[in-house]
């Protein structure tokens, strides 16, 4: 079966927001579940290369030089020294966890790309031209190259505007606390992906391998798959299963994009969306940045249906943390937004009422309901949300990557495998380029410790390597293979 026009419309309107907002890596997100704890804890981490090491090297040098002084200069120095050392130690601790977290993201990204490439190579449905999405109305089957270029630019412009509008809509809804609307939107899109798109996918796979299947078995399979997926993504489920479902829906969405976006439009959209991602996450008034900051202010997690997380969300019970940590937290002034609220809490940590200012209490009351502000009740409140796992091990902390990133990485690699003349060489080159881009982005994440766009570096590398490999390397390797020369 092929999708009709109205189906394409539904696809676009509901399915897009998957690709829309969460194209960022987030360092902060685990933090605001720690209650009062701030960035002094080891955070999301990096890989080991030059700049960060230089910096740490300098830090450690400074520390070694300062140590003898602290003994001679007396008490006041010691405490600040201790704090600085603790900061540096914690900063240094983060580097140690770096490589592991890079791999924790390499694996799902690789898996998603493998699923997409395998499907593209075997199921011909996704490389067949069956029309275009309603958001790319201009055809690319034109007579002249100029007309084709113009059409693809227009297509890309329309698509990007749709994405921008939907992102802004999402941010506005979030800001004005229309959580029900957002959840409804997410649930409808998950339903569409998990039931309808997977039904089509399964149908096409059966057609490719000539498997006879009756509707009853199919209905049972799709029903089970979809319901378990909805539960895992929107409620609770084993971590691995949730990750697997997120990877699957990203792959399904990427396949839809690969099928329905014409060639030049697809490459243009990839380029423009990485620029948009950069702007949206880093500019002060960017929608994604506002989304992350609002979530931090409210001490909430972003929607699990839009973000892939490498570990379970867990909480540290700050009420039982030693006062040492709280004092240290209060001294750090680099993070204004979240730390502002936290600091007030920290400084008054010794007082009876727990130090929560009335503003915070109102916020909390509006969400959870009036509670007494005692350490026990605070502990109970913080332990409430579902996915809590009392894990104190810093290595359990994970990185988060938006599903939009998965989708666009897979679109790039999938398009490369579908349309490149160099075929597998190009696919491999794009794959390595994207992984290296992800590595670099994680390194920057460890250095800057705030939400970063995950698309720009990877997509830039991917695009450069795609065009270079397809046009330059492929003829060279072809000639070498013909003569059986080896380099």
């Amino acid at each position, binding site marked *: 079966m092929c999708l009709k026009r109205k189906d394409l419309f539904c696809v676009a309107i509901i399915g897009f927001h998957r690709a829309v907002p969460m194209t960022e890596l987030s360092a902060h997100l685990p933090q605001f579940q720690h209650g009062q704890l701030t960035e002094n804890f080891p955070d999301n981490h990096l890989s*080991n290369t*030059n700049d960060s090491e230089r910096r740490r*090297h300098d830090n450690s040098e400074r520390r070694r030089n300062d140590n003898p002084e602290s003994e001679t200069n007396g008490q006041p120095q010691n405490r600040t020294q201790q704090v600085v050392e603790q900061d540096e130690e914690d900063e240094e601790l983060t580097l140690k966890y770096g*490589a592991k977290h890079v*791999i924790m993201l390499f694996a799902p990204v690789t898996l998603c790309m493998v699923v997409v490439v395998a499907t593209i190579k075997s199921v011909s449905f996704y490389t067949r031209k069956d029309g275009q999405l309603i958001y790319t109305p201009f055809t690319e089957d034109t007579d002249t190259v100029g007309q084709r270029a113009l059409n693809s630019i227009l297509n890309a412009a329309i698509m990007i505007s749709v994405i921008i509008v939907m992102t802004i809509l999402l941010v506005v809804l979030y800001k004005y606390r229309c959580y029900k609307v957002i959840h409804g939107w997410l649930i409808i899109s998950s339903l569409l992906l998990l039931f309808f798109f997977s039904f089509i996918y399964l149908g096409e796979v059966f057609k490719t391998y000539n498997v006879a299947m009756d509707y009853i078995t199919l209905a049972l399979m799709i029903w089970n798959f979809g319901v378990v997926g909805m539960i895992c993504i929107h409620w609770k489920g084993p971590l691995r299963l949730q990750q697997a479902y997120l990877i699957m829906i990203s792959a399904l969405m990427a396949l839809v994009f690969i099928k329905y976006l014409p060639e030049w439009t697809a490459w243009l959209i990839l380029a423009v969306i990485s620029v948009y991602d950069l702007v949206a996450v880093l500019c002060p008034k960017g929608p994604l940045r506002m989304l992350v900051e609002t979530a931090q202010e409210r001490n909430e997690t972003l929607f699990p249906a839009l973000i892939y997380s490498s570990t379970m969300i867990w909480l540290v019970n700050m009420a039982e943390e030693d006062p040492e940590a709280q004092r240290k937290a209060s001294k750090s002034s680099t993070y204004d937004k979240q730390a502002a609220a936290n600091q007030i809490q920290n400084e008054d940590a010794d007082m009876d009422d727990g130090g929560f200012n009335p503003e915070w209490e109102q916020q909390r009351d509006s969400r959870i309901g009036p509670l007494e502000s005692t350490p026990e009740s605070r502990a109970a409140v913080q332990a409430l949300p579902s996915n809590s796992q009392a894990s104190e091990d810093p290595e359990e902390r994970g990185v988060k990557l938006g599903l939009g990133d998965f989708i666009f990485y897979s679109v790039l690699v999938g398009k490369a495998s579908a349309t490149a003349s160099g075929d597998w060489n190009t696919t491999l080159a794009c794959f390595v*380029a994207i992984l290296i881009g992800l590595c670099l982005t994680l390194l920057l994440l460890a250095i800057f410790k705030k939400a970063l766009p995950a698309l720009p570096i990877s997509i830039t590398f991917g695009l450069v390597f795609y065009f270079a*490999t397809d046009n*330059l390397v492929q003829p060279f390797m072809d000639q070498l293979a013909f003569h059986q020369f*080896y*380099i």
Partner: protein
Amino acid sequence: MTLAVFFGCTFIAFGPALGLFLFTVLRDPLRIIILIAGAFFWLVSLLLSSLVWFIAVKASDPGDEPLQKGLLIFGVLFSVLLQEAFRFLYYKLLRKAIEGLVALSEDGCSPISIQQMAYVAGLGFGLMSGAFSMINLLVDALGPGTVGIHGDSQLYFLTSAFMTMVMIFLHTFWGILFFHGCETQRWWEMAAVILTHLIVSGSTFWNPLYVGSLVPSYLLMFATAAWAYVLSGGCTQNLLQSLRGQQSETSPQPGS
């Protein structure tokens, strides 16, 4: 051309490398990253060298066969030199990384030594080089066709697989040798690596006279293997002990 050819050639070409990857690299995230970064560096060197070749070809007469072959040979040699240059650049990068890792660690020594990095970097180069040479061939081997129907050699796939395997091994050993030469300032080791690479690539110009290419390559591979083994701290005693399955009592081996 059947599945048998496909699987046979795949395992000939990539079997040993896959074993090396599974048993030595997969456990350690840092090594995986170094491997992929090594593959990336090789890829960039290939890109630049094919850019040069492409420009040369476009600037020349496409009908002139000997000229095109000459340009291809020039392309191969230039690519070899560029690959070694990028190996040197990668060495520089890893050196800086080691300094950082040392600074970060609690006990003042890095979690991975430069010798291990040399091995993994060489393996990364080799895997990427092998993949680019072999994967398109393997996919073609799955499809229909007759090898050598126009009078070319019928052993095309098999010899390609063997050549790929030897190249992967060679890259690994060259990595070890090259990094060791850079570390100990022995320029002649680096020159030896460049020279052997040129010789091996040059020997492939004799294809399809496979005796002229495969035999020297394998001999050179065994020679560099022995040299790299000695440089990594191995000796015949250790080799015999490991073959007999015994543990060595005192083993001053710098890497694992």
